């Protein structure tokens, strides 16, 4: 069926038509990023409430995150399947696809986190609550910084990668690294705090708390990877 549609002819010669791709790959990457943004916004709010022991509506949040992950998957598939070898892009196609892949990994981990959190409503110990919330906020900020870096790709493409715009993107990328580093630090602090309470807590709770810290932190790791691939993509 698909092949038949492709064979449909307009009966004219216009070779210039064949030189263009129907959709802009960079726009699709940004479209995919919008899904990340939406997803992280929802999850960021939800997780803070979860940490405050407010589990109302969390299942809905989890469902929304899954839905966004699926929508982003479709964009990713469409983009990846329509980059033939003959397509020439202003950036390395391999690096471009790696950036896309890492951006998609953010959603995978967000979905995993949301579903796992919803499976067992673990009560965060009162004394660890501020640490957990700070950590989550740092991770979300890392993703936000990555979004800024990726968004600047429009200006990069428009100016054909002039120095000024490359510098700007690099500044955003630097910010991603900085925030990711802070999130890591916070995670170690958090883990230390959990171990300090291990005698008081139920072992299953300890296990889940440690896991939550890891799952949340994974998101920042992949945001950093996106930034790294972006950096490689725009390198001269």
């Amino acid at each position, binding site marked *: 069926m698909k092949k038949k549609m492709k064979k449909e002819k*307009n009966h004219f010669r*216009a*070779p*210039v038509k064949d030189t263009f791709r129907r959709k802009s790959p960079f726009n699709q990457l940004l479209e995919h990023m919008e899904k990340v943004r939406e997803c992280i916004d929802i999850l960021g709010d939800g997780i803070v409430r979860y940490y405050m022991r407010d589990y109302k509506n969390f299942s809905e949040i989890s469902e929304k995150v899954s839905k966004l992950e699926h929508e982003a998957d479709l964009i990713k598939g469409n983009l990846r399947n329509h980059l033939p070898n003959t397509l*020439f*892009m*202003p950036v390395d196609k391999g690096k471009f696809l790696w950036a896309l892949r890492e951006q998609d990994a953010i959603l995978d981990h967000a979905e995993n986190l949301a579903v796992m959190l919803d499976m067992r409503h673990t009560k965060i110990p009162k004394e660890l609550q501020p640490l957990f919330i700070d950590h989550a906020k740092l991770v979300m900020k890392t993703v936000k910084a990555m979004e800024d870096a990726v968004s600047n790709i429009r200006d990069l493409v428009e100016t*054909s990668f002039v120095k000024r715009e490359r510098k700007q993107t690099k500044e955003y990328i630097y910010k991603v690294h900085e925030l990711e580093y802070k999130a890591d630090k916070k995670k170690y602090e958090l883990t230390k705090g959990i171990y300090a309470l291990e005698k008081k807590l139920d072992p299953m709770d300890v296990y889940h708390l440690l896991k939550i810290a890891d799952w949340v932190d994974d998101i920042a790791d992949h945001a950093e990877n996106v930034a790294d691939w972006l950096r490689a993509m725009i390198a001269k």
Partner: protein
Amino acid sequence: MLIMGGASAVAFYMAWSIGSNDVANSMATAVGAKAITFRQAVIIAGVLNFIGAVFVGSHVTDTVRKGIVNVTGIDTHVLLIGFIASLIAAAIWVTLSTWKEMPISTTHSVVGALVGFGLIAGGTSSVIWSKVGYVIASWVLSPIAGCILAFLIFKIIVKTIFAKEHPVKAAKIVGPIIFGFTALLIVSSLFLKTPLSSKCNIDEMTGILIAVIVAVIVVIIGIIVFRKIKEKGKEDYATVEGIFRKLQIGTSCYVAFSHGANDVANAIGPVASIIPLAQGATVGSQVEVPYWLLALGGFGIAVGCMTWGRKVMRTVGNRITSLTNTRGFSVDFGAATTVLVASKLGLPISTSHTVVGAVIGVGLARGLEAVDLSVIKKIIVSWLLTLPIAAGTSIAIFLILRTIVG
């Protein structure tokens, strides 16, 4: 009279086909970049193709009618049949490949058909191989030239505008200057060695002087028009594109003009050879291409744009919306300059292929988000197919006609 009428009808059909396909192909960049609406494109293409055909179309027409087949020593009657056969053969192949959506060129079809007729009418010595060699070389060189020119002009735009701290301020000056260069090329093409210049008694120096004056005036007007445009904050690339959107209206006229100057020959070249024959003169005589014939070709192209060309332009324009005005400008400039220079040199080249070359040039300059290079292969295949098929068809039709007419 009957022969001339029939031949003119086929020529008109060829012109129509050129107008509806090739013109639409070259104007689509302006439509895709939203510099002009497709309605405006149809009108611009119609009018400027006509002007280009009438005023600068004679050089290439001369090549087509006298440069491919050496007519000395061939019987007038045979020549008459031959030119008609090649015109019909080219028309058939163009129609067929258009139906199949192959990126063939009307130019290649006509030259192929003429070579075929030359071979059958007078043997290998009747084809002016040196000239044919030049023409074929120009087919390879013209897309490359379009590619290089578009690459360079885009790089200049990046370096002098986008790389600057205040891109809008730079664009207000650089834009009109590049555009002035365009005006210089158009005007000098009109006044250098054209029927118009000999009619008005303009020698080369005066021609160049007029062109320079016009170019300077265009630059000054441009700078005055853009003077009031203000930068809306930092990194205001949209305003830069807005400036180039206005300039691209001009370059799309340039494309249409150059196109008319080059491609009208494909339609009327063979007829231009037939007319003196039918009137009893010999082909070799220095008969100028009659204005009414150039006008007929230009008119056919214009009608083609306004009929089938509307659909083509709209479809292609919708396909290439990712093209912005600075890119569209570069493509237009690269392609049109190549085509115009070739027209002045009397080389019949393919406009469509040159446009594709220019698009690839901007892509290689990191100006486009994605360029599909597979089109190159398609074009090369169409090159290799067109020459033998057009020549073969031409030979077949020639033989049939000769048996019928006797």
